[in-house]
């Protein structure tokens, strides 16, 4: 059977790699190209790069940086950040990226999902859903790097984007970003039972047990995390790591 995927998710900010905590406090991790070379050596399943500046600063994607990243990436590569049109997507795919993640735009302009899926194939169009609890503790879809509450119900939204042709959906729990407490398993389970496309849990695994829980209990197809692969120990020293392939072999 297919192996479950474990995906380092790396954030681009000012041309470097950063890690955030609950979507704030960006901390410098290192140079993206160096990081990819390490992840190549460790034969990671896939990489996700999200540019956290592109959308908020209303900039075009940094094509040069994406090209540099893609030319060193000998594994599946997903890029997200600042994408608003199929023309931009075409350009990013042509650089050697095979998946593009839409996030805020998936809410603001859902038709882009459909248009892109028709043009580039469903498997190339990923939707990343940022989910945060509101004042009353209800989970809602947020946009603009977790700043704006759309008041949309996450499950409803996931089913809509699946219908529009998203080939894979990444569920990102903003409350859990960078705090390494594990995943929102209840929500993942609910989403998983109501969809057929692959679901990736993005959030914060602090250890292998968190990842195994997401696979075994929530039955997600993939897990993506940041902190676990770039920090070491309680004091969060920067050290890029990836669990040996064997640890997941039998999951």
């Amino acid at each position: 059977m297919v192996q479950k995927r474990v995906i380092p998710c790396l954030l681009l900010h000012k041309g470097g790699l950063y890690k955030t905590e609950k979507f704030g406090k960006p901390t410098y991790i290192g140079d993206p190209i160096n990081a990819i070379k390490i992840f190549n050596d460790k034969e990671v399943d896939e990489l996700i790069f999200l540019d956290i500046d592109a959308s908020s600063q209303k900039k075009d994607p940094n094509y040069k940086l994406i090209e540099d990243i893609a030319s060193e990436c000998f594994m599946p590569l997903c890029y997200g950040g600042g994408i608003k049109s199929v023309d931009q997507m075409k350009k990013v795919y042509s650089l050697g990226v095979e998946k593009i993640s839409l996030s805020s735009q998936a809410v603001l302009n859902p038709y882009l999902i459909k248009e892109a899926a028709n043009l580039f194939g469903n498997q190339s169009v990923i939707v990343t859903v940022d989910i945060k609890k509101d004042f009353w503790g209800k989970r809602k879809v947020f946009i603009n790097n977790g700043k704006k509450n759309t008041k949309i119900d996450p499950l409803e939204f996931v089913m809509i984007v699946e219908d529009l042709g998203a080939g894979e959906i990444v569920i990102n729990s903003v409350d859990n970003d960078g705090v390494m407490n594990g995943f929102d398993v209840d929500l993942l389970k609910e989403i998983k039972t109501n969809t057929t496309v692959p679901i990736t849990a993005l959030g914060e695994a602090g250890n292998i047990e968190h990842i195994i829980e997401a696979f075994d209990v929530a039955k997600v197809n993939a897990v993506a995390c940041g902190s676990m692969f770039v920090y070491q120990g309680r004091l969060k020293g920067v050290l890029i790591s990836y669990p040996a392939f064997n640890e997941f072999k039998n999951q």
Partner: protein
Amino acid sequence: MIAILDYGVGNLMSIHNMFNKIGVDSVITSDVEEIRNADKYLLSGVGSFDHGINSLKSASFFKTLEKEVLDKKKPILGICLGMQLLTNSSEEGKEKGLGWIDAQTIRFDLDNKKLSIPHMGWSKVSIVNTNNIFRNLEENRFYFVHSYHVFCNDESNELATANYGKIFTCSINEDNIYGVQFHPEKSHKFGMKLLKNFEGI
């Protein structure tokens, strides 16, 4: 020189990047002359079957490619949709395939609710017929993304299988014509080895 066929479908840069990495000369091209002079061909593609086959057949180089592959027996490797185009037909569309290998492209069983479609992820591939393209690749894992798979009418055309809900054919061959369902260009050292093997054929 390996010509990576540019017919407006799919992600060709990542294949070119991997050929560069392993020191194999390749060029992304739709130029008839360049294609006539190439030693080998790489036919990649993503997206729908009908769009793929129509784009390929209407490419200005198509007649040249047909001649070089079918008459001059130059090796060609189809990847993902590129492999499916080598078959007779696909349940995904109405158009005929190239029919260069006697096989059909069929859909995964949707009744099995446990399976996410597309099949996306890494799988181990079992080699069922020895061939140089899988030389020293008994230990492997490859990256797959697809909703359809190939079914061979003649078992001797099967090179390898993988398992996703059922055992399915993931690599085919007939003489100088090869196909793989997975993405060697996204499969680390295993993909590098396979592409290097293809260069050496």
